[in-house]
Every structure is written in C-alpha cells, then in structure tokens.
C-alpha cells in the first residue's frame, strides 16, 4: 500500500514537472551554453546577458556545461532538436579545434546562427561557417596590461617595494589552471611586460621568489583559479619567506582576482597588507570583481585588469538580435566595435583598474 502510494506520488510529481516545463522556457529561441556556472566572471556576464535578452523581448535558456565538453556538446545537440534559432556558446575545450568544429557542424546542419564567446576558438573555425562569430577579449591583452601596471607601479615605488634593498624585486605568481590559454598568456605576458619596462628604466628584471622552481609560477592543482589554492600556497610560502628572514616576497601577481583575494587573506593573517603602518606587498589581479575593487579601495591590493562584462553582454545581445532577424546579417551594427581583420571576431577591450 505504502509503496503504491509512493509510486503514484512520484508519477504525479513527474507529470507536473513536465507540464511546467512546457509552459515555461521550453521553447526558447536563444540557447546560451556556459562552460561552468561556478566561474565568477562568467556569472556576471550571464546575469547581465539574461537581463538584456529579457529586455529585448527574446526568449532564452541557459545551460551549465560544468566544465565538461561532452556535456556541453550533448546539451547543444538537444537544444537544436528542440528548435533553437540561435546558439551562444562559451566553449569548454579551448585546447584544440575539434570540439568547436563539431559544434559548427551541428549549427550548419540545422541552418542556425552560432556565436562563440569569452573562451576563444581559432579563426579558421569562425571562417568555416558564414553565420558564426566570436565575442571576447584578446587573451594576451590582460597579461600585457597587468604587466604594464606592475612595471609602472614598481618603477614609481621601487625603493619602498624592494624590502631588503638588494636591487631585485622577488615575486610570486599564481596561475589559475594548466593548459588554459588565458592562464598561459597571463602568466607569460605579465612578467615579460613588467620586465621590459623595468629593464628599459635600468632596473634588474623580476626574480621568482624560489629560484629552484623553474616554472616561475604556482598553479591551482584543481584548475579552479581558486582563492583557496592561492591562500594555501601563500601561507606556506610566508612560513619561510618573510621580513624576519629578510627574503620576503615583494610582489604578488595573480591570474585572477579570486586568487588575489586568497593571497591577500594569507598576507593579512601574517600581518601584512593590513593598512596603516603594516608592510604592504603589492598584489595584482585580473577581472575587477566587486571584492577586488573593495580590496583596492582599502589599500590591500594595488590593481586589477577590468574585463567588461556589460560590454560583452551588449555585443552578444546585438548579434543575437541580428541572428533572429532575417533582414539583417550577423555583423550588422558592429561598426563601432573593435573587430579583427578578415575574421568575425569582436574584441571587448580590457581596462586597467587602480580604483
């Protein structure tokens, strides 16, 4: 008896569930695929884009790829069979073109527009299908801007930052993830650009705090760009490198703001970067999250590179509207945006943020 009641209840639940799905967003025109919902920056793109699409009167559905390309490709297949009219894809796998090419193939067969965003795909993928475009940043730009900020700031405050007065700034760098282009470029260019500026001014290049580490970075082993990873590393490093030992890390460069927050938290716990008279180690991040902006305002962090979530969402909703309008081509009205030559790639500029 009990078991039968349970089965009936379960069946009712399923039926009511499927009914609400029909009445809700089941037949959306625009389908947006995010590589993961847990990414802070991508989440701010998502909430801005959601409200812009709603304001434009477009029906949409969001998907969470959960960091898994297979999941995302299956979601895209399902969305196409459901009658999607435009696909917005924040692709998971940026390492090779295979996944992107497969998605382009799916969109071409269905005859619908496809817009990649945030995580970059190569030019040949975009050019292989007329109704395909990319909206994102230039991967190397964040690193270059961060390096510029670091270099300029160091030159301005060199003697204050060089705590042990040995004429060299020792630094630590937190990398978000192995094998991710953004992380690779940020890691490479931030240091290279800073060194370029330092050497032009007659200073010695930066030195990684631990000379036995040939990589020149410490990486989040879970590939999550997480504050916890940066925090654990920073705590461990501060145990042997501090002002008492005269070998303090004099500069902290982070691939993103979450890691910068974790580093600041560890520095605070060890008595640094607390404002007032405490020793302050310059910390740099990327993303300009609300938390990082507050840290910069409080003097606990120096600067970050701003990624323009609103700008990206605006470009995306413009392209989406074009895609759904038969009288327009995909790139109509993008004349005032930064577009690459020869390929439909819209670049949203980064900006330096010092607060």
């Amino acid at each position, binding site marked *: 008896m009990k078991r039968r009641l349970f089965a009936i209840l379960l069946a009712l639940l399923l039926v009511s569930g499927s009914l609400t799905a029909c009445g809700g967003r089941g037949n959306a025109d625009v389908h947006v695929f995010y590589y993961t*919902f*847990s990414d802070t920056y991508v*989440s701010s793109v998502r*909430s801005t884009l959601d409200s812009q699409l709603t304001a434009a009167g477009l029906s949409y559905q969001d998907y969470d790829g959960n960091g898994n390309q297979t999941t995302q490709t299956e979601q895209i297949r399902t969305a196409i069979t459901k009658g999607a009219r435009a696909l917005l894809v924040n692709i998971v796998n940026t390492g090779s073109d295979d996944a992107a090419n497969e998605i382009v193939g799916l969109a071409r067969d269905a005859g619908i527009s496809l817009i990649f965003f945030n995580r970059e795909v190569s030019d040949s993928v975009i050019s292989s299908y007329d109704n395909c475009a990319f909206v994102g940043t230039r991967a190397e730009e964040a690193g270059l801007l961060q390096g510029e900020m670091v270099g300029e700031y160091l030159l301005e405050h060199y003697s204050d930052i060089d705590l042990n007065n040995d004429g060299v700034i020792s630094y630590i760098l937190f990398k978000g993830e192995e094998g991710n282009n953004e992380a690779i470029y940020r890691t490479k260019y931030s240091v290279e650009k800073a060194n370029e500026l330092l050497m032009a001014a007659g200073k010695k290049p930066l030195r990684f705090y631990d000379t036995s*580490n040939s990589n020149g970075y410490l990486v989040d*082993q879970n590939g999550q760009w997480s504050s916890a990873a940066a925090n654990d590393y920073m*705590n461990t490093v501060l145990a042997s490198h501090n002002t008492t030992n005269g070998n303090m890390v004099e500069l902290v460069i982070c691939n993103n703001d979450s890691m910068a927050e974790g580093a600041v938290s560890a520095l605070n716990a060890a008595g640094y970067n607390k404002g007032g008279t405490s020793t302050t180690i310059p910390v740099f991040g990327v993303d300009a999250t609300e*938390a990082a902006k507050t840290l910069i305002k409080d003097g606990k962090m120096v600067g970050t590179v701003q990624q323009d979530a609103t700008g990206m969402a605006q470009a995306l909703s413009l392209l989406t509207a074009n895609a759904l309008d038969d009288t327009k081509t995909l790139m109509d009205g993008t004349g005032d945006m930064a577009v690459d030559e020869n390929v439909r790639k819209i670049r949203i500029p980064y900006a330096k943020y010092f607060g």
Partner: protein
Amino acid sequence: MKIKVIEKFKAMEGRERKAYLSELLINNSLYIFLIATIILIQCLNPRFLSWPSIINIISLSAANLPIALGIAGAIILTGTDLSAGRIVGLVACVSAALLQSSNYAGKMFPNLDTLPIFVVFLIAIAIGALVGAINGFCTATFHLHPFIVTLSTQLIAYGALLLFLMIGNNNGQSLSGLDPTYTNFIKGSAISLGGTPIPNYVWYVLVITAIMWVVWNKTTFGKNMFAVGSNPDAANVSGVNVKRVIILVFMLAGLLYGVTGFIEAARIGSNSAATGLNYELDAIAACVIGGVSFVGGTGKIGGVILGVVLLRLIFVGLTFLGIDANMQYIIKGLIILIACAIDMRKYLVRR
C-alpha cells in the same frame, strides 16, 4: 610491558627475529616514511622546521581535519561520502553571506545587520547536519549504498549553492568582505609560538577532535558505530538500532562539514561555487592513509590525524622544494596506494 617485548624478542630464533622486525617495519612504515620525509625536506631546506613553517603545517592540517573526521565515520560503516566537499562549499557561502560587514559595497543582503557569530555557527552546523541526516536516512531506509546517496546529494548541494550565489544583487560573484569580528574569531590569534601567531581555529579544531575521540571511544554510540561497521547483522541481533546509528553517523559527519565550512569561509576570505570542490577526496585519502579501512569497523582518531598531516606535509614539502606540481599528483597517488596495501595486509594477517 616493554621489557616483556624485549625478552620475547631475545627468546626468538634468528629467522623469527628477522620476520618480527620486518613485520614491525611494515606495520609502522607510515610513521617511518613520515619521519624520513621530514628529515629529507629539512636537509634540503633548513627553514622547513622553523616555527612559522611548523605552525603553517599545523594550521593547514587543522583546517582539513574536521571534514576528515566526519568522513571517517562514514567509511567505518563501509560507506563513503561524496557530498562532503559540496556541503563545505554551501555552508561556507551561507556563513560568508550572513557575516559580511555591514559597510561592504557588494553585500549580498544589504539590509541584513551582521548576525552574531554564534547564531551563524549554529545555522552552519544545522545545514551540514540536515544534509547529513538526509544522507543517513536514505542510506538506512532505502538500503542504498552511501556512494549513490551522496553522489545525488552532492549534486543537490551544488545546485543549491549555485542558486544561493545568484540571490539578491550578488549575481554569482564570490562572497567576501567579511565582518572583522568573524575573521578575527577564526584567523585571529590569542597565542603565539616562537613569535608566530597560531590562528584561533586550530584550538577549535583541537577541542572538536577531543570531543570526537570521546564520541568514538567512550560512548555507546561510538561502540555501536564500530559494531555496525564490522557486521550490521550481528549488531542488529545484539540489540543495536542499526538504522538509528547510520543516520546519526552521517548527521555527525554533516555537522563536522558544517564546522569545516564555517572555518573555511573566514580562513580563505573569498567564497565561490568552487569552494569545497574535491575536499572529500583529500579527506577520504587522509582516512585511508591513516588506517580507516573501507573493510569497515576499523579506524582510530589518531590515524585520521596522521593521514591529514601526511597529506599536508606532502603539499608543504613539495612547495618548499619547488617541485613541479605535476609530481604532486603522482606522489600523492603512490602514497595512498601503498598505505592502503599495507593496511589491507595487516588486516589479512589479523584474520
């Protein structure tokens, strides 16, 4: 006692002695490995055994201990708990949201005054205990393996966390800007050792560990837990309420994840959906390294502590030596494998 052992050893024949010694070596190989590791790293980098470094290892271990103590209970019942990490993440984010300082610009609940720390702590462990109780209830009532139950609740907890992060004007941003009284309560320091402050949470974890030792070793509930773990049918026959024990073990585990999340939120200072990810795997690894066997019914608090410390020691040691992060995976994997092989061997010998 010791003299007796020596006398016994003296009475042995040559071959017997050899076997006895090798047995002794194998059974204590983890301790030997631990000491050898410490000596090796110390030789290569003399700062390894300085006060700041020792306290760093202790505090990193302390932060990872409550979750391991919780999961150990589930393993003793021949189960496991995959939901631990996500529960930590959920609790950390809820605690952070409720304890953001009132003048923080990106506050999730702008109209909410900063709640008393104790109230939020109760909410934190209540959330953990609730999810834990659900785990235990489903395991005991539907006779499902905890692997399946917690595989499901792990997803549910993650979904709840993602929904939670979109509430108010937060828009999926990470939660930080915590109230200073909260961060001081966790990260502040009342006592210093060798000039290095010891974070307060180390003491809280110490108290919790002591309580857990009493629960495991001195209470009927603890004895019942081991009884159910080694043979649920026998326990049932001898009058133990097996279902109740299973639910309570998982609930206690959830409560400890709640404690971990509450500490983690302030310790890291920035909380997002990635908080807590894969924590359960480290905790399970720590348990099995420390001899909490998947066979069920065996495990000691001391073993769990040993496992947690060993894993942290590997992390800190390899960072000290500047060894490639890729090697850490391999070394960690090998240690877990070898430790479990030795543990299983002991178990077979005893049988």
